[in-house]
């Protein structure tokens, strides 16, 4: 699948970065940012997911065609989630 495999050091550094992001998530959750608490928490989650996909899932070391399929998968997931949340997201909007 992937021709050049990263070293265990890459995985260790990536895991450490994820732990730093986790600490950041917990710290920021205790600060009142109004409606932006959710936005910031989900923003950090997107950053963490990007790290996992790029390094743990080897996307960084894969061919462009694999990027296309990975993006298509998550784009489809986004469509499904926004359809599932369509009622909740439009409740206060008459």
């Amino acid at each position, binding site marked *: *699948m*992937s021709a050049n495999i990263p070293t265990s050091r890459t995985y260790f550094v990536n895991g450490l970065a994820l732990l730093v992001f986790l600490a950041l*998530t*917990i710290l920021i959750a*205790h600060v*009142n940012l109004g409606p932006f*608490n959710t936005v910031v*928490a989900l923003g950090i989650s997107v950053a963490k997911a990007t790290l996992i*996909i790029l390094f743990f899932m080897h996307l960084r070391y894969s061919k462009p065609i694999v990027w296309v399929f990975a993006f298509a998968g998550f784009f489809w997931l986004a469509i499904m989630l926004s359809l599932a949340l369509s009622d909740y997201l439009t409740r206060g909007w008459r």
Partner: protein
Amino acid sequence: MFFYIYWLMTGVHALHVTIGVVLIVLFALRAWLTNAFRNHDTPVELLGLYWHFVDIVWVFLFPLIYMIDRHS
């Protein structure tokens, strides 16, 4: 409503994690006892992809169910 979604999400996630742990133990035993998975086999890659998919789910679930409304 929150606890309906809470139990559903954590329950399905627990099922995924259990499947992942069982498969990883089986793969580890096979790699330890036999010569399978010598040259970065596709099954190992796929199990890795599955495990990190479960990982990504928790990355989003954890802040959404445990960190929302934590502030005073």
